[in-house]
Every structure is written in C-alpha cells, then in structure tokens.
C-alpha cells in the first residue's frame, strides 16, 4: 500500500514538475516563434525592398523627353523618328542629325529644349541617351521581322512609350549592367502586360503562341 501511495505522491510531484517545465517551455517557444517571425519579416523586407533598391542604380536621361508633344507633331507615328533603313536595319534612338532637322533653334520656351539646343545642337555633340531596352551583345533582334512582317505594334514590347510626357528614370543593374526593363519592374518576375519584361522567356512565350514553336537558338542569337 505504502509503496503505492509513495508512487502516487511521486506521480503528483512529477506531475507538478511537468507542469512547471511546460510553463517555462511555453514562454521560451513563444519567444522562439516571435524571434522567427521578426527575422522572417526582416529578411523579407531586405529581400523585397532593400535589395532591389541597392541592386539598381538610378540615372536620369540627359534630356527629359516629351513623347506626347512629338507624336502629335509628326505624321507617321513612331516610325517618323525611329525609322527603318533601306537594308531593313532599325535606326533605334535617333541621332542628333535627325533632331537638328527640326530643332536647329529652339522652337519653344521649354527649358529642356533650350538645354538640348544649347548643349548638344550648338556644340554638335551626340546626346548620350540611356537605352531602356538594350539587349546583351549575344542577342540578335530583327525589328523589321516583327513590325513589317508580323505587323506588331511597338507598344506590345515597349509599352505605351508614346504617351509618356517625361523620360522615366533609367535603372541600371549594378551586377549585370543591364537596364531594369529587361528583368521587369516586378522583382519576383510576375508580369501583367506583354511589355513588362524583355527576357528570353518572354520572347519564347510569344513565339510559341504565335508561331507554334520557340524556334532554334540562331533565330535570336548571334
């Protein structure tokens, strides 16, 4: 009997001891969970907000360009300035010579235009435009195949640039040296519009949809 009682006592003692341990465990595990959550939030903030800010250096275009005014003034839309040469190559961003055709002297009061005329036209110096959609050296892209043959709109890949009144900030990836427009604004890589990104997968996605296959490597590489 006595042994049983003893055992019972021990049990209760042990039981209370267990409860004590449990109580202490609760507070410490709560602290661990809190610590984990705080750490997770901190690393998410670093990963999603601080890191992308650090990764890209922000540069302003030498001249704040107003596309809206220019689109209104020209007859042939984008191709008035971003034209095709006779051999099918694409001129890209216009050279100074072309701008000078209209802007030999300032036509208005806009400080940007005056700056352009004084610093570049007068000195016959090319404007060092930053190219948002510059691809790596190994990429071959034929504008004429897409615009003339496939009858695609410029905006499908470049977005509504023609509706912009100011040049947006050029963000350069400090590691790769490429523009942020290639990777896309969204750091996680989600895209809503066709012009959100300009990576190889985006080309391949459209090619697969429109032509039925991604094509061979040499179609776009050189």
């Amino acid at each position: 009997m006595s042994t049983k009682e003893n055992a019972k006592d021990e049990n209760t003692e042990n039981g209370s001891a267990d409860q004590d341990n449990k109580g202490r465990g609760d507070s410490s595990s709560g602290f661990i969970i809190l610590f984990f959550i705080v750490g997770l939030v901190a690393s998410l903030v670093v990963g999603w907000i601080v890191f992308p800010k650090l990764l890209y250096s922000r540069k302003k275009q030498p001249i704040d360009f107003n596309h809206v005014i220019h689109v209104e003034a020209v007859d042939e839309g984008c191709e008035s300035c971003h034209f095709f040469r006779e051999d099918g190559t694409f001129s890209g961003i216009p050279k100074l010579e072309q701008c000078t055709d209209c802007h030999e002297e300032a036509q208005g009061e806009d400080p940007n235009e005056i700056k352009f005329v004084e610093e570049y036209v007068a000195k016959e110096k090319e404007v060092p435009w930053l190219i948002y959609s510059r691809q790596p050296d190994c990429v071959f892209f034929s504008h004429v195949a897409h615009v003339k043959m496939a009858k695609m709109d410029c905006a499908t890949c470049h977005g509504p640039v023609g509706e912009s009144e100011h040049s947006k900030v050029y963000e350069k990836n400090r590691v790769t040296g490429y523009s942020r427009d290639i990777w896309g604004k969204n750091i996680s890589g989600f895209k809503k519009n066709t012009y959100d990104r300009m990576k190889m997968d985006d080309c391949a996605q459209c090619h697969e949809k429109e032509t039925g296959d991604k094509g061979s490597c040499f179609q776009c590489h050189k």
Partner: protein
Amino acid sequence: MNKEHKDTKTKKFGMVIDLDLCTGCGACMVACMAENNVPFKEDESNKLDSITWMRVYKLTNGKSFPDTDICYIPRPCQHCGGIGDHGHSPCVSVCPATATDYDHETGIVSQIYTRCFGCRYCMAACPYHARYFNWWDPVWPGDMKESLSPNVSPRMRGVVEKCSFCFHRYQQAKDRAYANGRREIEENEYQTACTQACPAGAITFGDLNNPEHQVHKLVNPDPKHCGRPKNPKAFRLLERLQTNPKVYYISSREWVRRAGDNYIKNESKQIA
C-alpha cells in the same frame, strides 16, 4: 510546324568546294577570321591554341616525282544533319548544355557562346576537328577592337566556337528581304565570307533543297540516300560515318576522292 515558316520553304544551306580549282592561297581563312571576329594568337603555329573556323589542309598522294601530286582542302564546319537530317549531328547530340542545336529551317548547326560552359564534348565528338576551344580571352592589338564586326558577338575564354556559315549574313539578308516586302531571299543575297573571298571561285554556297541553286546543280544530292551526291566527281568527308554533312567537295582525281574517307589500304569495296 511553324506558322510563319509554313509560308517559307525549308532550307538546307550547303557548300560545294571544287578542289580542282583551289590553289590553297588561304584567302578563305583570312576572310573568315575578319568576318567572324576570330581571335588570333601571338603564335599562330601553335595549333593547340589557334582558332581557324575555316582551315585549309594539304593532302599529298604520297608518291615521289614525277607522280607526286598535292591537293588543298578547305574545311569549314560540315553542318552535319545526321541520317535523314533529323539533326542528330555528332556535336549536337553530346552537348549537355544545349549550347549547340540544329536549325531545322536552315540546316545550320548553331553555337551559342553564352550558353556553352566549355566541357568540350562536342570537340571530342566532331569527326572533322571543326570546333575550337578558347583557352584565353581574345587580345586585340591597338585599336583593332574598334573594327570588330558588331554582327558577330566575340567569344570569351572557356567556350567552344566554330563556323556558323556566316549566319549573321542570313539574318541581314532576311531583314533586307522583309524591308522590301519579300519572305524569300535570293541565292546571291546570302553568301558566306569565304565564298566571296575565294579568288579562284572554288567555293559555291546556296540552298541544297533548291534545284535552281548552283550548289544543287553541281552535286545533285540524292535525298533517298542521305543527300549523297549523284555527281560521280563529288564526295563528302568521312561519308561512311553517315554524319550527312552539308559541305561537298568536287575533284576529278580519284586519289583525292578516296582520301576523303579513311579507307584501309588496299580495301577493295567502298562501303556506302
């Protein structure tokens, strides 16, 4: 199949080299290096290091005077299609990185330098030694870097490179055709640098699928037999490996044609 390419015919670009005309001057090699930004080395005689997309070899019949005879044989990448042109080229089938692939629209074997990681399996697999490894970054003396072609991306240390049949010229030719509202290019719009540089006119380039093209007329490839030439004077290198190359050679000399395949001495019957 490709929607866009349904409108255009499948091409099979190939080359015919007339060895009776080749003088071994090496103009094709020079033109190729200049066209494709091929780096040169301080010691070009070090053949483990030097890179020659197009290379002229010298063959001799091994006989002494007065029967001695030599033949120069230019060797670009053979752009093998494999049996039935399914793209089972020796190099393409071994590449673990898919850095080289077979273009079914043009029959050209590509090499994507940014994708290659330099394992050199393809070099081991290529029976023609047409592939070269960049042991060093290219060094361009003086201002020469400024005169590199922007149409061909330069290679870096640690990747394999090879002849591309001047694929950038095909891209440019297509752009020109598109600008004029055409889908198909003309025969003379796409020619490789070596073809145009050859002073003897020994090299002919064009679409082997197109009976109108000179290359087709010269060799008359037999589609039933893996594109083997019907012209008895024409041959391909190592025909018996069935790599189905797109580079054909023409020679009126029997010993040259036999040298195109490594037959065992005194072998009586050609295995085909």
